[in-house]
């Protein structure tokens, strides 16, 4: 099974410079945080969907679809309870808070999608190098990339471990909630221990290859901002500037909504 997050395609988005992608990722956050009204979030949603399709990252979203569904449902419920409206919809729900819950849910899924696009289209090394060129210290960048790298390792060892315990008769799909939680212990302990063991070897291998031997290090990868990068960046900046202007002018807010 392939547990890698990075998708080895060669789409337009893959070819962009990591700095462009990181900037767009950050700008996306600003753009989606500006509005309370889901309708005003539609343009960003459209661009993120476009990126998902072009880059093929939608495949990775499909892999985490269960988590997304759980998050969507709980967020829809919670944001209804944590905000107040004035126009009744049904039972205790109000129209304004219902809209707002949609907007917040959208915000969450869009953030996850934007992050997924970034790591599905950018190699770990490119991401680190991009962050360093943007001013982050090497060690911090390396720590981030190591954390990302652990995800597929843990996923694949979890799979093996759950198979091992299932063949011993562990049945994860039945029993009460408490029983089910208890049943995860036979999975968690081995996952934890094998991850620690792996990390230990990883650490030794790193040092053995001279990690941190010199103050400065070189990079074999070469980053280059091309015409496409500047065009995409210019568009993204204009888009966010426009969004900010609209937001300041008072558009995209929900009248009659009280947030806690």
């Amino acid at each position, binding site marked *: 099974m392939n547990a890698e997050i990075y998708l080895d395609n060669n789409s337009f988005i893959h070819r962009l410079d990591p700095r462009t992608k990181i900037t767009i990722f950050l700008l996306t956050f600003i753009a989606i945080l500006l509005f309370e009204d889901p309708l005003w979030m539609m343009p960003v949603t459209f661009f993120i969907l476009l990126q998902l399709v072009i880059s093929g990252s939608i495949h990775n979203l499909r892999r985490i679809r269960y988590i997304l569904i759980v998050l969507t449902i709980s967020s829809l419920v919670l944001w209804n309870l944590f905000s107040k409206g004035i126009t009744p919809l049904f039972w205790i729900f109000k129209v304004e808070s219902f809209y707002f819950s949609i907007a917040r849910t959208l915000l969450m899924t869009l953030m996850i999608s934007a992050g997924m696009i970034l790591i599905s289209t950018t190699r770990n090394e490119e991401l680190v190098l991009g962050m360093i060129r943007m001013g982050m210290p090497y060690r911090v960048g390396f720590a981030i990339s190591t954390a990302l790298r652990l995800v597929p390792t843990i996923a694949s060892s979890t799979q093996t471990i759950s198979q091992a315990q299932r*063949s011993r008769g562990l049945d994860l799909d039945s029993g009460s909630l408490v029983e089910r939680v208890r049943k995860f212990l036979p999975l968690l302990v081995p996952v934890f221990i094998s991850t620690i063991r792996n990390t230990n070897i990883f650490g*030794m291998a790193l*040092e*053995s290859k001279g990690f941190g*031997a010199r103050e400065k290090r070189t990079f*074999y990868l070469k980053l280059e901002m091309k015409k496409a990068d500047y065009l995409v960046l210019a568009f993204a900046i204009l888009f966010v500037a426009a969004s900010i202007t609209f937001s300041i002018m008072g558009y995209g807010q929900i009248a009659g909504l009280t947030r806690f």
Partner: protein
Amino acid sequence: MSEPIVSICDLQYRYRGQKEFALNGINLDLSKGEFLVVMGPSEAGKSTLAATINGLIPHFQKGKLIGDVTVMGRKTRENTVAQMAEIVGMVFQDFEAQLFSTNVELEVAFGPENFAVEREEIGRRINENLDYVGLDAIRHRPPSTLSGGQKQKLAIASVLALKPTVLVMDEPTTDLDPISKMGVFEITHRLCKRDDLTLMIIEHETEEALYADRVALIKDGKLVKVGAVREVLSDVDLMEKMGVMPLGIPKFFKRMGIRRPKVLCSIFESNLPLTPEEGFEAFTKTDWKISESAYQKLVSEEHAALAKLNRPLIQCRNLEHSYSKEVKALDGVSLDIFEGDMVAIVGQNGSGKTTLAKHFNGLLMPTGGEILVNDLPTREQGVFKLGQRVGYVFQNPDHQIFSETVFDEVAFSPRLRKLSEDEVKQRVKEALKAVGLAGYEEQDPFALTKSGRQRVAVASVLAAQPEVLILDEPTTGLDYAEQRSMMDMVCRLNEQGSTIIFITHHMWVVAEYARRVLVLKDGKILLSGATRDVFSHGDELRDSSLRPPHFVEFSNRLGHTFLTPEEMSNCIEGVQD
């Protein structure tokens, strides 16, 4: 003689929190271009010794270090691991954890980048080293998609890119199939000759040690013997005593020599033949002959015993399995496994062995064809129900152990099956007795050695009292003595009526313990049959990256397939006492 490159002087080392010294007074020099293989039983201090060469000990693993390790005038004590990395390269056994880049090129670039090597020079080193280990064609692939052998070659290339003077490898081939093993050793051998690189390799398998100049045997943190490769490997008795696998060919001649010492001395002087070629040559010089009648008797007895097994437990008909659309991991496998059988499944890394075995207990369901266990399709039974009949011991015991005591670990499965506590106790007792761990009930399983944890894993599967026991690489990571006792135990279970299926890369284990062998290649069955028949097909085996042990190869050249030295020496005529 020139200055030694590596000099180990009165070295003692104790891990923090331990009472015993893991290394206890080691003195050893390595000269330029020398190739040393270090062998010894588990816990002898081999890996500890390897870790002292580049300073992982004492810098990464804290403890008490007495004495000195000096590499090219640099004391490891006074230099960090990263500083030593320029002169000492280190390759580990676990090839998953030591590769961390997203493509092959960048993996090789990582080391030189740390030493601020110019970009153009890094490019040159990437080209040179990938070309050298033969990974040039796949330089843009992510390492996670490579086979085990390729990963280990990549690990070597990535270390060579630092242009070290010394290369230390800690069991680099343990998880590899026989031909990949040879590939790695062939590369290291070339290296020694090309760059005057000094090599130190920790190895379990004696056949691989034949490439070395010198062999060091260590036990309990002490050097027992260091000497030229021929001298050490000929000392069959010492090796056996130390729990290191002796070579079959010298063992055979030694055995024959006990029957007729004078002949042996006159033919071989002090050196016993070691390789199949030498063995063949030496054999033709004697007046020994293989008794045709004794051989035929051996073969017919074996076939008669196999013919007695006739109740099929597992039947596969045209079994197919694909993980993705492009590749079929299993492609039309048809086979029967009979009650009381002892079957070895062999094949190169990625040939579908584990995928096949996971169908037997319902962990995987076929995407084509069918598989019946006890005449019922596995799909109708499910893994929970099948688990009672078909037990599966995974390769890595750490992937299943989670309890605080050995008792609880072994009791896990019976308890899940809602047995009474008395019955659980009885089952645990029997299972622990079967694996030789009676009396260990209250111990912490994590504190046991690898071989101990492996036994706990087997016991915890046995406690469900399955009819069929599947073992995925039961001998990997164990030393020779542990491998033997593990397989002897499996053999006893088979004699008591369990049907055994095991996956392995260790060909001598197959030769000595399996009744039948299945050879898989690219998801298809290439060869199957009685062990002796399969091992007589040397060429087909090579096709699937396997080769019989040296001893079997040697007997094949004499026109007969013998699986053990004992068996062969009993079939020899022409030896007068």
